[in-house]
């Protein structure tokens, strides 16, 4: 039985360098560039919408910064907005509590509803609106007052508490929820600006939740913080999401992946894709999203 293998099997072992494309290529062809009447892919609308935005456009003078955004933010949802610098995500976020009103040349069109109420209606008062929709900024900005006063200020001016005991209770609960109480309970009279950066940011969050908002907007809340303080804030976001609706703008994609339920990707003022965070970071629908989160531009 000495059969020889006459014809070599149809194989050429690839031990030497394999023939392949010079670069790693994105498997899916792209729908690029984004046209003027671009329609968001993914799942921008949800059933239990807290915020409902329809055809939102934002202009700075002549220049349009946000194009035709349709998006819902669900009750008790954490939604992350990501995208390269200047893509309109912060501008969009600031529309949600009319923070852009302070900029004269800024104009917003379309419909933004909070619990079915048009927030850009002329009869809408922005003071109670901003109590309902609180905001945390990139740089911690405590008032130049004591830690206690920082937290108590909001409830006082909104008339949520008049007696000292009630105020004390609000300050304590807010600081506790922000994970700061244990660190500052013995020095509530110390100035808020004397805390570390991470503590200041948590103080700002405590200040925000002291007025019992329904929605918290966060504009890169961790970009000025060290990893430990960042981790604490992220932990806090997870905790807060049980009672609050949270919209967070972040430059850190890993942060978006860690904290959010849904992720929205903005590009040049357009909302490219909204999907469950897990989907966005494993199998995004749009090639631009893919290119951004894999670090191919941004």
């Amino acid at each position, binding site marked *: *039985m*000495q*059969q*020889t*293998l006459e014809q070599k*099997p*149809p*194989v050429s*072992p*690839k*031990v*030497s*360098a*394999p*023939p*392949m494309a010079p*670069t*790693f*290529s*994105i*498997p*899916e062809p*792209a729908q*690029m*560039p984004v046209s003027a009447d671009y329609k968001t892919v993914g799942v921008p609308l949800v059933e239990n919408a807290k915020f409902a935005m329809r055809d939102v456009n934002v202009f700075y003078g002549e220049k349009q910064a946000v194009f035709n955004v349709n998006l819902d933010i669900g009750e008790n949802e954490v939604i992350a907005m990501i995208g390269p610098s200047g893509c309109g995500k912060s501008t969009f976020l600031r529309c949600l509590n009319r923070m852009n009103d302070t900029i004269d040349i800024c104009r917003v069109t379309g419909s933004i509803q909070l619990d079915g109420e048009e927030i850009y209606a002329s009869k809408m008062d922005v003071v109670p609106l901003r109590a309902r929709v609180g905001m945390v900024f990139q740089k911690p900005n405590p008032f130049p007052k004591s830690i206690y006063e920082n937290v108590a200020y909001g409830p006082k001016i909104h008339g949520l508490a008049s007696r000292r005991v009630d105020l004390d209770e609000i300050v304590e609960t807010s600081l506790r929820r922000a994970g700061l109480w244990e660190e500052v309970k013995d020095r509530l009279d110390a100035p808020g600006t004397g805390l570390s950066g991470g503590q200041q940011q948590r103080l700002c969050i405590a200040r925000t939740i002291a007025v019992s908002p329904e929605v918290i907007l966060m504009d890169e809340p961790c970009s000025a913080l060290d990893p430990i303080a960042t981790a604490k804030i992220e932990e806090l976001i997870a905790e807060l999401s049980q009672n609050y609706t949270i919209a967070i703008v972040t430059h850190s*994609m*890993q942060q978006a*992946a860690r904290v959010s339920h849904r992720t929205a990707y903005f590009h*040049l003022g357009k909302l490219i894709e909204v999907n469950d965070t897990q989907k*966005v*970071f*494993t*199998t*995004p629908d749009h*090639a631009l*999203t*893919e*290119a951004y*989160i*894999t*670090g*191919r*531009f*941004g």
Partner: protein
Amino acid sequence: MDNLNLNQHISHQFNEDLEHLRTQFLEMGGLVEEQVTDAVRAIETADGSLAEKVRRTESEIDRRELELDRQCMMVLARRQPAASDLRLVLMVIRATADLERIGDEANKVAKMAIALNEDGVSPRGYVELRHIASGVLKLVNLALDAFARFDVDSAKIVVRDDSLVDQEYRTAIRELVTYMMEDPRSISRVMNIMWALRALERIGDHARNIAEHVIYLVHGMDVRHMPFKELEEQIEKRNGNKK
């Protein structure tokens, strides 16, 4: 937008890391393919030294498996890859295990070649062996090709044709069992060929796994444990959605 090259990461090093994973994997694949070819040839030509060579090279494959695992871990730890990059790393981790198992099975075939040399050649089974081996080698080759070119169509063919190999394997076994009943004195020798066939059939299964990983890599769909028909429908549906 116009002058962006979306095929390149901003980080050059990251590009190179992923590219390196890919090349290393394909090299390991080429080596494994050679092992299977050599092991089959060792049986067919009763070439003991070739079988010994296969058994020696086995350790090289194990070493490459560990090395690839280490590199995948490094990329995960240092780059936190996402989307297609993440799928590539996951795919390499999984498929490396399959390649290593293919190497093990080739080693078994080589062992049988040595056993056949010692016990004497089997009176039957060589035709089947050659037939199944060529089918299996084609699967392995196609699966690696599918990976090299991110080619779902080739991957689909591997998944489909693996069941043909399984079928041929069952037919061959039935035939050899019949023969052994007719001539019990040949049992130990025929058994050697049967073990080799069994190993080849397993290699086909691993090639199928690799092809399934390729589909995961390209489309992000987990198609493991899925009948071929369903798999085809799912891919069809996905392509329809894309258009």
